[in-house]
């Protein structure tokens, strides 16, 4: 009686090992083609650098626009990297195999989103304080900026995954995904940039960070599920 049970258990991997292997696979794939990840990061750096050149080098102005500029650049960089999330797996049929595997598709999607965040959101959050120095932000605001980005960018990956799944294989998908996803990013932008601004004006950033964390909790719950539904529609 016990013997067949263990066999079944070994045939279908546990949810957590599946999650871990999807994350490892996506990171390994990205490590083999570093240019994809690095291009997004340099896009972020270049966009942020353009703003002082366009607006002028007055530090007082730059300090005020820094949170917004960094957040908008992070939004655009995340959006550009969304294409990477499913397109290659869709093209070579891996996604269909994932959809029919014994592990729930939602788990595999969650793994892919986590890997996407580790490769795009986390580097942005780590890089942002260095760019913030160019905008003359104080050390405390640099901390708030990094924390806000660390909480906010997973939301961007989770919401963006829905848009990426909906536009799989659709003509003009790259431009379309920005039209679908950017409006949904606006609350994250408001509270993410607001956190740094609130700290600049001495209000304290905890309220904004709590709201960002609330967004993260809600999207972490619904995001993978909505992405799964969207993927199944695209794979029909």
């Amino acid at each position, binding site marked *: 009686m016990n013997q067949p049970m263990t066999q079944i258990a070994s045939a279908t991997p546990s949810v957590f090992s599946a999650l871990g292997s999807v994350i490892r696979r996506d990171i390994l794939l990205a490590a083999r083609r570093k240019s994809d990840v690095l291009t997004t990061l340099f896009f972020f750096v270049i966009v942020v650098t353009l703003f002082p050149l366009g607006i002028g080098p007055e530090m007082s102005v730059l300090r005020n626009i820094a949170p917004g500029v960094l957040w908008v650049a992070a939004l655009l960089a995340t959006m550009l990297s969304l294409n990477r999330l499913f397109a290659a797996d869709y093209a070579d049929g891996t996604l269909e195999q994932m959809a029919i595997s014994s592990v729930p598709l939602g788990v595999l999607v969650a793994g892919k989103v986590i890997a996407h965040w580790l490769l795009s959101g986390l580097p942005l959050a780590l890089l942002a304080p260095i760019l913030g120095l160019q905008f003359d932000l104080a050390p405390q605001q640099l901390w708030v900026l990094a924390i806000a980005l660390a909480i906010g960018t997973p939301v961007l990956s989770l919401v963006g995954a*829905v848009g990426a799944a*909906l536009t799989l294989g659709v003509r003009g998908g790259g431009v379309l995904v920005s039209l679908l996803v950017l*409006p*949904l990013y606006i609350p994250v932008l408001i509270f993410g940039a607001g956190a740094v601004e609130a700290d600049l004006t001495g209000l304290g950033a905890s309220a904004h960070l709590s709201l960002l964390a609330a967004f993260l909790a809600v999207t972490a719950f619904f995001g993978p599920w*909505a992405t799964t539904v*969207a993927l199944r*529609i695209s794979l*029909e």
Partner: protein
Amino acid sequence: MSNQVINFFKFSSPQAFYPLAGKMVPWFAALAAILGITALYIGFFIAPTDAQQGEGYRIIFVHVGVSWMSMLIYVVMAMWAAIGLGFNTRLSNMMASALAPTGAMFAFLSLCTGALWGKPMWGTWWVWDARLTSELILFFLYIGFIALQSAIDDPRRADKAGAVLAIVGVINVPIIYFSVQWWNTLHQGSSVSLTKSPSMAATMLLGMLLMALCFWMYSIAVALKRLRVIILERERHTAWVAALPEVKS
């Protein structure tokens, strides 16, 4: 009783609903015209001049109704999309597609009338206030929905993808509604409240409600008309469409 239920479900088929929609359109259009003329008459000639805002406030009669409709239509659209996604009924998805352009138009009109009202009252066309911004986001959501549906050639996939987007976007509508409480800014608080007695003259309220009803009727008429066109387009290969007198001629 069971007989009635069967009658209702009969109309979830495009073939059965097409003639019914055709009969309903003129009635709703006529109601919209009557209500609209009455509301405009009240708005322009009967409602008193506002003590603080002068004659400029009269755009409220259009602005409020238009803003209500832009939000309501998104919720109704998401509801039809959810029904279509859940029960796989073609007509519900067509209804969602038919509502989207009307909703987008109302959101655009809401922004335009708001700007026209804002210029004399606040001295500026646009304020980065939460409610205005949310209305703008709502407009973007409508455009995203229409763009996604028109980018996908297969109507079944377009319906379902649009439905997922509409349901995800409907989270934005409560944010619009509660934004006044969330962020305190320049925009005046809402003047119509269910809990407090309204802070405006009864005739003003009457005009505003009549105008909102007019927009309501207009939306139903236009959505049904558009639904008929969508049904014809999607069912053009069927025998019943080929047998229709307007198609034959």
